[in-house]
């Protein structure tokens, strides 16, 4: 249901944009107003979100330690997995953000009654007791990593539409990306990887019973939006070449705040631009803000210096405790009888 309704919504969005691209009088709205608004919503929304989190205190040190603490000098401590220095924390976060370290840890657990091996090659044919077995599970990690990195590459490659003259390194990126040249124009590796990774993530969400059960409308929506965005981009690059000069005029106009709507921009481009605008505007209000949130996660970005240094809770307040005096008052006679020392005789 969620999978279908979100798909329909994305199709409607694409159709709206197509119409906007077909009807010339709507070009200023779809070429300038919508992208500009989306940009503003993104910047403001993103800032509000991050500032909103950052203003909430982290009252307690709660790092999840995934390695040996720093304690006795002769015990090798896990500077990366249980960091106690800033360098350690930065390295831990870098691994988290750049390589998805925690996701990499992932295993898959299953219950089996397979016969237990006797360790000599031959097997007892009788089923064993029900037991848990663990297997490697790297596909999710691989697909997530492939998706994020190739998406970053694609975004950077698009700089050539937003900067004039195109910086040299953007060209180099494109050259590397197009290294495996197949015909002309060069097929970008990242385009292929991006589509494959998205396909994996989508198929996993649709076919894995547990993941489908936890998936909400917005989980599919983000994926379909991205698939639509990438598909229209790929179509324009390899199959229905649009007027690049006109597009660059439009995009440059947007970023230099000198809006211009050139003629000859195809409706397909308007679909691409509109889906991007929706994604960008949707970003701050959705789970996609994990991009910023990951940096603020207190279980990952704090050093395990809990007992080494004092950490202050800004809203710490006094609480009702049972003082020693009250306690002794209640038990004094029994304590005296038992020969325990008391404060008041």
């Amino acid at each position: 249901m969620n999978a279908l309704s979100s798909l329909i919504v994305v199709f409607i969005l694409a159709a709206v944009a197509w119409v906007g691209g077909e009807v010339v009088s709507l070009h200023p709205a779809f070429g300038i107003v919508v992208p500009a608004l989306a940009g503003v919503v993104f910047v403001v929304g993103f800032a509000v979100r991050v500032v909103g989190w950052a203003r909430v205190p982290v009252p307690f040190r709660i790092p999840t330690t995934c390695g040996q603490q720093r304690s006795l000098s002769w015990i090798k401590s896990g500077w990366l997995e249980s960091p106690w220095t800033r360098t350690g924390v930065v390295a831990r976060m870098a691994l988290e953000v750049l390589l998805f370290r925690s996701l990499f840890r992932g295993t898959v657990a299953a219950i089996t009654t397979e016969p237990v091996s006797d360790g000599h090659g031959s097997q007892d044919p009788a089923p064993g007791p029900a037991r848990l077995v663990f297997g490697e599970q790297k596909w999710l990690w691989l697909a997530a990593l492939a998706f994020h990195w190739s998406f970053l590459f694609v975004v950077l490659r698009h700089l050539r539409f937003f900067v004039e003259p195109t910086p040299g390194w953007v060209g180099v990126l494109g050259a590397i990306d197009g290294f495996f040249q197949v015909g002309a124009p060069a097929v970008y590796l990242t385009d292929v990887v991006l589509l494959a990774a998205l396909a994996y993530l989508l198929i996993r969400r649709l076919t894995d019973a547990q993941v489908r059960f936890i998936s909400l409308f917005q989980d599919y929506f983000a994926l379909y939006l991205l698939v639509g965005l990438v598909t229209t981009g790929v179509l324009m690059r390899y199959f229905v070449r649009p007027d690049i000069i006109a597009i660059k005029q439009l995009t440059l106009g947007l970023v230099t705040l000198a809006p211009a709507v050139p003629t000859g921009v195809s409706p397909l481009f308007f679909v691409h631009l509109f889906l991007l605008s929706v994604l960008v505007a949707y970003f701050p209000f959705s789970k996609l803000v994990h991009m910023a949130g990951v940096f603020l996660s207190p279980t990952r970005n704090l050093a395990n210096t809990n007992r080494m240094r004092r950490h202050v809770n800004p809203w710490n307040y006094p609480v009702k405790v049972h003082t020693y005096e009250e306690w002794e008052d209640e038990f004094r006679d029994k304590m005296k009888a038992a020969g325990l020392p008391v404060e008041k005789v």
Partner: protein
Amino acid sequence: MADQTPGPDALAKVDFRPKGKTWLEPHPEFRKGTYCYSAAPKNLTYLGLPNPREWQPFNDDWKLPPDWKTIILDGMRERLDRYRSFRLFMDICVRCGACADKCHFYLGSGDPKNMPVLRAELIRSVYRRYFTPAGRIFGAVVGARDLTEDVLKEWFYYFYQCTECRRCSVFCPYGIDTAEITMIGRELLTLVGCNINWVIEPVANCFRTGNHLGIQPHGFKDSIDFAVDELEEITGIRVEAPINRKGADVLFVMPSADYFGTPHYYTLLGYLMLFHEIGLDYTLSAYASEGGNFGLFTSHEMIKRLNAKVYAEARRLGVKWIIGGECGHMWRVLHQYMDTMNGPADFLQVPVSPITGTRFEHAASTRMVHICEFTADLIRHGRLNLDPSRNDHWNVTFHDSCNPSRAMGLLEEPRYIIRNVCKAFHEMPEDTIREKTFCCGSGSGLGTDENLEMRLRGGFPRANAVRHVRDKHGVNLLACICAIDKATLPPLLEYWAPGVDVAGVHELLGNALVMRGERERTTDLRGEPLTAREEASAHA
């Protein structure tokens, strides 16, 4: 109770296919054996907690206060402004499902709402509905739910079906920690008087007498005296175990189970022998006679209220620093909360071992050292005379208790001790130890008998790994450093992996410790003849 519990083969048949189309519709169903009874009114009243009344989770009417919804939503708002963890974890989950099969309750029950992601969604859906624009406008379409009584009941069911073990947070790409969410969820439930007795009664006892079991000072002394007598029988040595003695160097705080339950009790014997042997100038306290802190399972405020007595007593007795015994949640509190809540401990000194001169720099601020850190240092410096052969009847594996491993990073110290006090040690499989350790299934106050089926289900992954080393290496003892483990793992293993006993690390140390002037030991600390056990294991 036990009679109604299905056998291991039946219980292990878990169906992981989610039933129904959506989780949004709350279906709270309190099936016997899978939930804990409500907190008795007298305990709530004693602590000054809201809405004390007679009720049970299986009742239709929970007798909530008339403005319960406002109380919960106001409580949520307050906590969203106080805990970045809570606010952030409400916002950034992408529902990738990496956490799903990391939870022992999910693995043991197959209930989809035990997937950490869905457990969090139970509260996230309400957050969306009342605190986000999308949820306000689109409602159920974007996974937002009205806060209804059924939703609240579902919170109760599943937040008391989470042991706050943090295993899922190890695997989450954003470090989302379900323990944080569960803790806040339980705080909110506490605001309207929906708690479980197995948590609130220990809290009330601890507040009043100083310990969970409600043992009064003279009873505490009796217990310790009994241990001293028993030690004399075993070793021929009469140790000192001073209580409330002013001017000692060190205050020793342990979980109360250590002086009242088995097999914890043998660990206490180990501590007492160790302190005597090295001549430590220490004292116990009847006021701070509990290190464990069931406040952690109630609210942050309650953690602070119970924990306060440790520093207060250290100050009153004028000790220099503190050692803490083998206890899981106790150490989560001592390591992550104590200094912030009840510090600064500037009236204490940075801990220095009087025996080895080691300065415990990593405890420079809290001034409290874990007994395993202290003992490992002694062994490293060759200050203990150890005879590991006295543990020859044990073939040992080690269970990393969730909190010392995932909240402290205390992994090597207990292993170092074990390797020095016994000869046969085998690790459980890689995916089930250290930071990936599996919970006993009964932590965070769920270790009560009415909850037995859920405990057995939740403990299955742990027990399964124990069974593996039992079958492969002949392991017959699971060592651990947590009082809840010691209480709840024996019945768990009896059910899933019979033939494996449970012990504290300092019990093994006590067995191996050769004390000056001791007579030849004929029994281990459990009073079992050493020779008979050796013969038994030789014949096995």
